[in-house]
């Protein structure tokens, strides 16, 4: 691991550990996870429910509910400042200003009794010393930037008057209003229809590149990852199990969980002669975080598991240049492909 953080790095997360104290025991929701995001770069975090991808995002924002959750270790460095060391007031100055977040369900994240324009103004006036008139103008400009037709009229409207795609555009406008260094999008298009999803993804990527924002895209959809990200990390049971550039990951996935995920997805384009073939399923289910096996958490579901996998947790190692995997057999997998 490098000590010096390159100048263009916006966010650097080191050995992050977030745990939840519950009646049924201690959950290691995020267990020693490190990653970084550069200016203008899109990092995708992929995994299934409960793998820790959303808790990682909430930890960066310091929005993990305490109790039951707590960040117990690591650092989250945004533009040179360790966010975990800031007091609450200083953190409020960062949220919505230097880091913003877009959530899955735009209807529940927007205030139903506030006009769209006022909601964007709220973020702007909290962080910038501008008159309300100037802030309103900025809000309308933001709505225009996210390609909402008739932005002057839409700014006067309430969330229920907007369609799902339009609401998500308004959320993006709000998130980008203060030109943050980092945008976290947690399943931003999961609630949207496929044609609207294509529009919103294209919009996010376009704006992010124009504004130079670092983007963390959290998703379970490998299609979305392939279409938008530059780098990908795959999470399983709270740990990072693989990290690579998007090209390398789809070319040769080194962790059996990653290749299993890819094989279990039905593909529209692969409608060849034998499209009625069975999908490759990953047997079993995601383990409960309170009761993890001693070795690799994926070993009970893994076809390639050997005795060592069940006893020792494999460290994350750079199997190929810039391609990390936490698997005892990743070397063999890399050699075979």
């Amino acid at each position: 691991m490098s000590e010096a953080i390159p100048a263009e790095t916006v966010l650097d997360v080191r050995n992050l550990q977030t745990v939840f104290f519950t009646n049924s025991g201690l959950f290691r929701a995020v267990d020693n996870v490190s990653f970084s995001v550069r200016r203008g770069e899109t990092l995708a975090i992929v995994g299934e429910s409960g793998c820790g991808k959303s808790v990682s995002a909430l930890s960066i924002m310091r929005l993990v509910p305490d109790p039951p959750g707590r960040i117990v270790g690591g650092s989250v460095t945004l533009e040179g400042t360790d966010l975990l060391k800031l007091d609450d007031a200083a953190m409020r100055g960062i949220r919505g200003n230097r880091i913003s977040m877009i959530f899955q369900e735009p209807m529940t994240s927007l205030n139903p009794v506030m006009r769209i324009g006022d909601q964007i103004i709220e973020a702007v006036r909290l962080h910038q010393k501008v008159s309300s008139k100037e802030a309103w103008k900025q809000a309308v400009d933001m709505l225009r930037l996210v390609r909402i037709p008739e932005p002057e009229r839409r700014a006067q409207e309430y969330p229920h008057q907007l369609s799902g795609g339009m609401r998500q555009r308004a959320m993006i406008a709000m998130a980008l209003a203060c030109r943050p260094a980092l945008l976290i999008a947690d399943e931003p298009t999961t609630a949207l229809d496929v044609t609207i999803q294509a529009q919103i993804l294209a919009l996010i990527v376009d704006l992010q590149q124009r504004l130079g924002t670092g983007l963390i895209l959290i998703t379970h959809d490998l299609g979305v990852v392939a279409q938008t990200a530059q780098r990908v990390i795959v999470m399983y049971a709270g740990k990072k199990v693989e990290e690579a550039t998007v090209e390398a990951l789809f070319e040769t996935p080194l962790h059996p969980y990653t290749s299993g995920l890819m094989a279990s997805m039905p593909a529209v384009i692969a409608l060849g002669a034998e499209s009625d073939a069975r999908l490759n399923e990953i047997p079993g289910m995601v383990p409960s975080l309170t009761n993890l096996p001693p070795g690799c958490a994926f070993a009970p579901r893994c076809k390639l598991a050997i005795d060592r996998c069940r006893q020792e947790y494999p460290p994350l190692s750079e199997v190929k240049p810039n391609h990390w995997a936490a698997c005892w057999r990743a070397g063999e997998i890399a050699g075979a492909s």
Partner: protein
Amino acid sequence: MTEQRPLLEVTDLVKHYAVRGGVLRRQVGTVHAVDGVSFALSAGETLGLVGESGCGKSTVARTVLRLVEPTSGAIKLDGEDIAPLSKTALRPYRRSMQIVFQDPFASLNPRMTAGDIVGEPLSVHGIATGAKKQERVAELFQQVGLRPDQMKNFPHQFSGGQRQRICIARALSLGPRLIVCDEPVSALDVSIQAQVINLLIDLQRKQNFSYLFIAHDLAVVAHISHRVAVMYLGRIVEIADKHELFANPRHPYTQALLASVPIADPKARRTAPLIDGDVPSPINPPSGCAFHTRCRYAMDRCKTERPALQAAGTAHQVACWLNDGTGRSE
């Protein structure tokens, strides 16, 4: 193929909902949820129904089962029109048609054991009781990949994928000929989705029932279906054999829909989205072809005249005025 009578034949199905407003709750508008849908489904066949939210695909599914009363149209099950039947007269037909819903958390009674849930239809229809019922339930559990000793467990003790298996076992209990699947895997994780899809396909091969399969995920539909119908604002705009539909889509909406699916291959990155704007409201659907407001190939005729489904190749029908009613070739 021999000319057989299809298991299910739906003709000109219409479902309108009244929109009421004002102090007197007078009808101020009509939601055209399903607006003249016709299709047929043979025994052992899977017809996929795709489209975006609000296109009427779930309403079609529920109307076919008469969970929602149709406004007009015929629903023939084995040649018998079940649309005008009274509730009592419909009852024997209910045994042949079952449904699996999207959310396995909401569709199981949390106070009943899994075994009771799966056995309930057997009691309701007076098919089996006591030890015979238990035996049949155990057999159903095995068929869907659950252990018979799990019969005494409650729904919260199962994972999402297992709960969907319980829903499938319940649907199978009466030996149905038609199973409607309304987004059966949308709530599940990717690795669990594959397990449930494989199970659905295996069961169909063994028992030869038909699926009306609804999903918004085109890849899932492409995988499981034999034929696919694409819906837009209450109408079928294109219906074809699945290989034909995905290889040679003719309706501009189908083409845009297929092109919008994010492909899991970074080398196949798309540049710009193919269609702009949102789906119009079904309260005031556009005149003529409902898609003309978002279609970049729309002509004057599309704005005034509604295109009907027309043959465009073998086992392929499309509702589009382009190329004399055969749609756009790419």
